[in-house]
């Protein structure tokens, strides 16, 4: 390659410059800002923010049970005069918004910054929403950093703004901020005096009369914030030499615009709500035409159009996904009536899809293998690793929309069933953390309204999907210290599930699990089956002796493959004709013993008992890692 030129004259990295993700940079700034209380519920792409905050000293940090509680905790600390912080993924704000919509009326005493991370491009989410709506909906200012350095700097600026205007401030991030690493110049922590709580019922007790008096104050604050946006350093005009198109942009889209059109004038909005209309009007006058590049909804565009601006935006750019250079360049070329110079392209090559799988020995494997054997059943699912049960080979999950929704949906499926489906079984599947987040109210509703639902509560003692974070079900706090652990069996009994309808089952004991499921789905009342084996990614999990396949005994039935364990691999396929004349496909297997942790889920489906512990065969085996998936030359 010919990249030698790049060594020429690089700037020297200062020791205070660190390679940080946007999430790490926000956490660093939270610490520097003198924050005393920080709370969050894990959610991609925001999870690492609180994990990093928790590693800094001098702050109280917590995993809250859900985003609404985390925001309420942060707000309480802000009422007490402390700087406080709260982080969540975009859908978390749907949960937390009830609190947000009224704390905008009270305002805050200590600075309160809420980081909301939008999953633009849906890398790990059930939808793609634009959290910039919340700034407009709640009448609070909203900042949009464009890289890690800005994630750091804007967090500090957000606290200043929050205290100056006594308002919660939203820091809007996207996956391309949270998970991009870049160089960040950092500072040190500045402790701040804490004013303490001042009793003021007219401000902190939002009954209608008091709230009514706060409404004009909120609108007045918005007017002052708009004036602030006109002069704020966070909003920057970059004059350009090629004025055919001027761009109005914010967040990571700015980097894509700057990279794609190095000579164009750009209005970069850092404080993107409220919009500085006067400054934008002056900018517009310098450009032949104006294009708004925003991820993802046309919010700025719509507001500018309402102000009489002549702008283009979503009529030439997509309404979803990232606005990267390969999207922007052709769209703008088309707008200008230009033909893009044909770039030599490397054609894509078709390859099988590789969807995420459950881990080797995951306790959910047996649950879904068992569920896949039930007939005449509708399975209401929830958010977590176990959502993967909808896929191959299990096909054992029929619906999933939002955190905790499996419960309410199951009750609705029960009450709304057609006459033809009167014998259909309704099963709900939910994980421990999701149950505590928003699921338990749904179960209470099932009990109270005499629903006929069998609930599978998969207690793996971790928020598995986001990397095994702790929660009230794990018995550890955010620092890994021992904490009170909820007793799920007692909890569901307390919600009104009858004692004989509550079962705790080992997730690896498939016959017991199947029998319990069959019995409970026959009984027309709420029942809860709790499976109780830890996530294989957390330290509570202990690997057992691995298994292997006796090659001569394997009949190629392929039953073990239906468990869905990634350690089982096909060595040879065949097709035979049975005496009945029926053709049967055979798949002979081996177990990647270096990856196997001996859960034994594949033993029961194996008809010829060909699966044995490795030492039975006296073969050398190196157990090198817990979840290795290597198959050289397979």
């Amino acid at each position, binding site marked *: 390659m010919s990249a030698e030129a790049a060594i020429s004259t690089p700037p020297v990295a200062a020791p205070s410059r660190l*390679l940080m993700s946007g999430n790490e940079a926000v956490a660093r700034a939270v610490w520097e800002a003198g924050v005393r209380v920080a709370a969050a519920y894990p959610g991609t792409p925001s999870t690492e923010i609180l994990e990093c905050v928790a590693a800094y000293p001098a702050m109280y940090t917590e995993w809250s049970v859900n985003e609404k509680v985390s925001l309420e905790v942060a707000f309480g600390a802000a009422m007490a005069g402390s700087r406080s912080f709260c982080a969540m993924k975009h859908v978390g704000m749907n949960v937390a918004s009830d609190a947000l919509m009224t704390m905008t009326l009270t305002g805050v005493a200590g600075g309160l910054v809420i980081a909301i991370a939008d999953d633009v491009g849906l890398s790990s989410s059930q939808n793609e929403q634009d959290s910039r709506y919340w700034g407009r909906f709640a009448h609070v200012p909203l900042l949009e950093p464009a890289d890690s350095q800005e994630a750091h700097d804007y967090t500090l600026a957000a606290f200043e703004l929050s205290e100056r205007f006594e308002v919660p401030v939203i820091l809007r991030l996207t996956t391309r901020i949270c998970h991009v690493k870049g160089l960040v110049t950092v500072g040190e922590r500045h402790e701040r005096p804490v004013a303490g709580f001042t009793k003021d019922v007219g401000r902190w007790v939002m009954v209608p009369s008091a709230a009514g008096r706060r409404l004009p104050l909120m609108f007045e604050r918005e007017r002052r914030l708009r004036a602030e946006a006109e002069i704020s350093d966070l909003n920057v005009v970059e004059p350009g030499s090629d004025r055919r198109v001027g761009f109005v942009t914010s967040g990571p889209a700015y980097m894509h615009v700057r990279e794609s059109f190095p000579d164009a004038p750009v209005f970069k909005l850092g404080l993107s709500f409220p919009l500085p209309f006067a400054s934008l009007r002056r900018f517009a006058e310098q450009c032949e035409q104006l294009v708004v590049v925003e991820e993802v909804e046309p919010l700025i565009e719509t507001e500018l159009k309402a102000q009489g601006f002549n702008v283009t935006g979503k009529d030439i750019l997509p309404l979803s996904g990232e606005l990267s250079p390969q999207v922007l360049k052709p769209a703008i070329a088309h707008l200008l009536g230009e033909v893009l110079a044909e770039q030599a392209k490397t054609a894509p090559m078709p390859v099988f899809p590789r969807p995420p799988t459950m881990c080797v020995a995951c306790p959910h494997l047996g649950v879904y293998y068992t569920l896949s054997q039930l007939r005449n059943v509708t399975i209401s699912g929830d958010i977590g690793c176990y959502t993967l049960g909808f896929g191959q080979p299990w096909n054992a999950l029929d619906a999933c929309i939002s955190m905790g929704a499996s419960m309410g949906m199951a009750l609705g499926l029960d009450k709304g069933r057609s006459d033809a489906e009167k014998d259909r079984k309704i099963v709900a599947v939910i994980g421990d953390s999701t149950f505590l987040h928003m699921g338990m109210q749904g179960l209470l509703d099932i009990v109270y309204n005499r629903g006929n639902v069998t609930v599978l509560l998969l207690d793996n003692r971790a928020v598995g999907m986001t990397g095994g974070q702790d929660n009230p079900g794990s018995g550890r706090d955010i620092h890994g210290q021992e904490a009170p652990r909820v007793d799920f069996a007692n909890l569901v009994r307390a919600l009104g599930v009858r004692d004989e309808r509550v079962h705790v089952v080992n997730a690896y004991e498939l016959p017991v699990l199947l029998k319990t499921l069959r019995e409970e789905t026959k009984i027309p009342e709420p029942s809860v089956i709790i499976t109780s084996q830890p996530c294989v990614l957390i330290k509570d999990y202990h690997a057992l002796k691995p298994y292997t396949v006796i090659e001569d005994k394997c009949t190629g039935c392929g039953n073990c493959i239906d468990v869905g*364990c990634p350690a089982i691999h096909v060595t040879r396929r065949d097709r035979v004709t049975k005496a009945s004349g029926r053709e049967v496909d055979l798949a002979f297997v081996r177990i990647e013993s270096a990856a196997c942790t001996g859960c034994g889920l594949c033993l029961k489906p194996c008809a010829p008992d060909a699966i044995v512990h490795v030492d039975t065969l006296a073969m050398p085996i190196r157990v*090198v890692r817990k979840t290795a998936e290597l*198959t050289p030359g397979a």
Partner: protein
Amino acid sequence: MSETGKFDTTNILVVGTGGQGVMTATEILAEAAIALGHDVKKTEVAGMAQRGGVVSSHLRFGPKVLSPQITPGSADVLLGFEAAEAMRWRHMLRPEGLVLMNTGRLVPPIVELGLYDYPNDPVAEMRAAGTHVVAFDASMIAQELGDIRLGNTVMLGAISDHLPFPAEVLERCILKRFASKKAELVELNRRAFAAGRAAAEEAAKAEAAAA
């Protein structure tokens, strides 16, 4: 050398599957570029990567980096930790770019279930399509050294002679990571790096001879 925007930027795409150490390897490459004073951006979308899914990590470095993403058709080097994954991301490479890849295969359940086929010969198929491929079995090398987790150091050794800076800079960045740990780990990684470097050199020679 790609020319997107004003600045000369080197684009390296590292691909594989969850658990292979793709993101760590890219981070070490980034550290080496920083050590030489470059501006650096590194990005990946890895939301569900821990579950054995596809991982692709973008590294861009140069005097000033703006967009963190490599545009399709502009990667200088594609470092493939798994054979089919190298194929999946080939379109990211600029036409005269280089694929450095592990021939080791990780076959997912969806293929074991018989729903899809694994490509017969990823290396040959890419070469037939006109791509410059240097391929060797990094998984085997790592296993022979006693730990499959050395695979990413082997791959870093392989790329070390194809960077706009000396291989020793990269090696130092790797070994620094283990400096506070067991001396044995430093030595193992040193050997893995050297083995990867040698294997890539040998594979490149073999390819040149065959061409």
